[in-house]
């Protein structure tokens, strides 16, 4: 008799434990993300790892570019927007019109890297002024000797991201002084691998793109120091690699954080960031406590 009662008690206990644990695991729902191709590798990694732990939550990630992502985010079509630059006033105004309040989270640091062909043995350093002279609209720079007279009298082949890219916006703002102002006669591609191939194949090429792409293609390209500082994890994080080190973000619609699956995803994002961000080629923040606090405030 006693044994039977004990079995019943144990069974009930087991059931309680099981149902509680399944409550904790069984998150459901959708988290819709879109935006920057620069932030994509990080968000994709988070979505992937999160999906393994929460198979019933559907995390979807699109790559429309920072601007394209905000276009959807500000009319409420997405929950989270990947952004490689802060939101513009005009974009924030649309969000306000649609009654959407949002919060900015810092995800990582990226250092836009100026690169040249490995056979280029003269340009190991460029100053911000020289970069400006090369990239400003109506630039008179045609050959390397136009930059510094002692450099080769060979035509300089320029490569860079297209105008939909947040990297383009940031570079032009940091170097030329106004976002979107750039000479137009260069080889532009939204696909950074095209830029890598172009620069790797031309001794007189010069280009720029995100640090992550440089890290993956170190053996094909050389990075150029900007104002005598080379991009590296250290110099990007401590701000020495200025002005081309930038923060990259995700923007979150405040309302959706109340949904359990979104809150869980955000927590996961910033708890794992320290570990996952470096593996994607970006530089992690020294601490993500602040970002986690923001999640607490929103929920």
């Amino acid at each position: 008799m006693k044994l039977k009662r004990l079995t019943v008690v144990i069974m009930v206990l087991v059931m309680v434990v099981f149902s509680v644990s399944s409550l904790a695991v069984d998150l459901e729902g959708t988290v819709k993300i879109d935006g920057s191709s620069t932030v994509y590798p990080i968000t994709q990694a988070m979505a992937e790892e999160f999906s393994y732990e929460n198979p019933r939550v559907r995390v979807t990630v699109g790559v429309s570019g920072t601007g394209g992502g905000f276009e959807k985010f500000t009319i409420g079509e997405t929950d989270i927007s990947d952004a490689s630059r802060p939101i513009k006033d005009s974009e924030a105004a649309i969000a306000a019109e649609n009654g959407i309040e949002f919060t900015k989270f810092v995800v990582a640091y990226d250092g836009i890297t100026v690169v040249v062909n490995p056979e280029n043995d003269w340009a190991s350093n460029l100053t911000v002024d020289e970069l400006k002279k090369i990239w400003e609209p109506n630039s008179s720079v045609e050959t390397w000797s136009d930059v510094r007279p002692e450099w080769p009298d060979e035509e300089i082949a320029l490569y860079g991201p297209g105008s939909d890219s947040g990297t383009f916006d940031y570079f032009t703002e940091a170097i030329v002084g106004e976002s979107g102002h750039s000479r137009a006669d260069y080889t532009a591609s939204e696909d950074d691998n095209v830029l890598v191939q172009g620069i790797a194949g031309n001794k007189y090429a010069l280009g720029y793109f995100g640090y992550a792409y440089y890290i993956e293609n170190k053996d094909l390209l050389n990075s150029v120091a900007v104002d005598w500082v080379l991009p590296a994890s250290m110099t990007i994080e401590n701000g020495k690699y200025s002005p081309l080190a930038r923060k990259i973000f995700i923007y979150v619609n405040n309302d959706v954080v109340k949904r359990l699956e979104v809150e869980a995803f955000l927590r996961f994002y910033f708890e794992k960031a320290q570990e996952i961000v470096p593996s994607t080629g970006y530089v992690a923040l020294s601490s993500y406590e602040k970002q986690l606090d923001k999640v607490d405030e929103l929920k």
Partner: protein
Amino acid sequence: MLARKMNKRKLIDKFFRYIFLSFIGIALLVLAVLLYDVFSAGIKMLDWDFFTRFDSRFPEKAGIKAGLFGTLYVIALMIPFTLIVGISTALYLEEYSPKNKLTNFIRLNIANLAGIPSIIYGMLGLGILVRTLALGRSVLGGSLTLSLLVLPVVIVSAQEAIKSVPASLRNASYAMGANHWQTVSKVVIPTSLPSIMTGFILAISRAIGETAPLIMMGALTFVMFTPEHIMDSFTVMPIQIFNWTSLPKKEFELVAAAGSSVLLIVLFILNGLATFIRYHYSSKY
């Protein structure tokens, strides 16, 4: 004298024969190089797991399941819609419409629509299907966008097919006392179906490879599930392949090649099926 003239004519004959043969050779060579290039790189990643895994940030763990299912769903939804609307429109234009300026204008416009860049259809899909009709970024929205994209080609080729049905067949049908609808359904459609299918096969092949309009209308890049119903979000193979080629890790080029191989295999299978259907029908007449 006569023999010399004859020889000359035979020589010209031979000349053109070999010219055309060499051009076919060039076309086949290019195809062979392309296939070799794609499959030789793709085969390294191509195993059963590649079909059963979702995308991953690690090249060795990446799979095409989401894109494969997305593409199959989109095409499966697209086929009935395109066939029904395409053939009906062509039938109306060729068989029923009054021969006036308006009809000519419509025909001209359909032919023009066939030449519009696909990205424009993506914007149309985004504006009308996704937002106004509130279909969202769903399988249904995607397949209708692709349907709109290929409909002009299907309609024009169906029109040509219907036009080429010999008048003698029609007249024979009327002479037997058949009315217009009976003639259309029993004679015109079966006779022209093989040619209609040819245009249709080309259209489907184009739709399978399209990326731009689907990215425009907002198909996703990274999903770790397959669509469960027609309003579900999705991705397709070309988007996944495009994305793999743009990632920083170079190993993803192999993954992209493997994805391209799968895309080509699916394309061959679908084309094979369509060709089979075409032969099946054409043997009747």
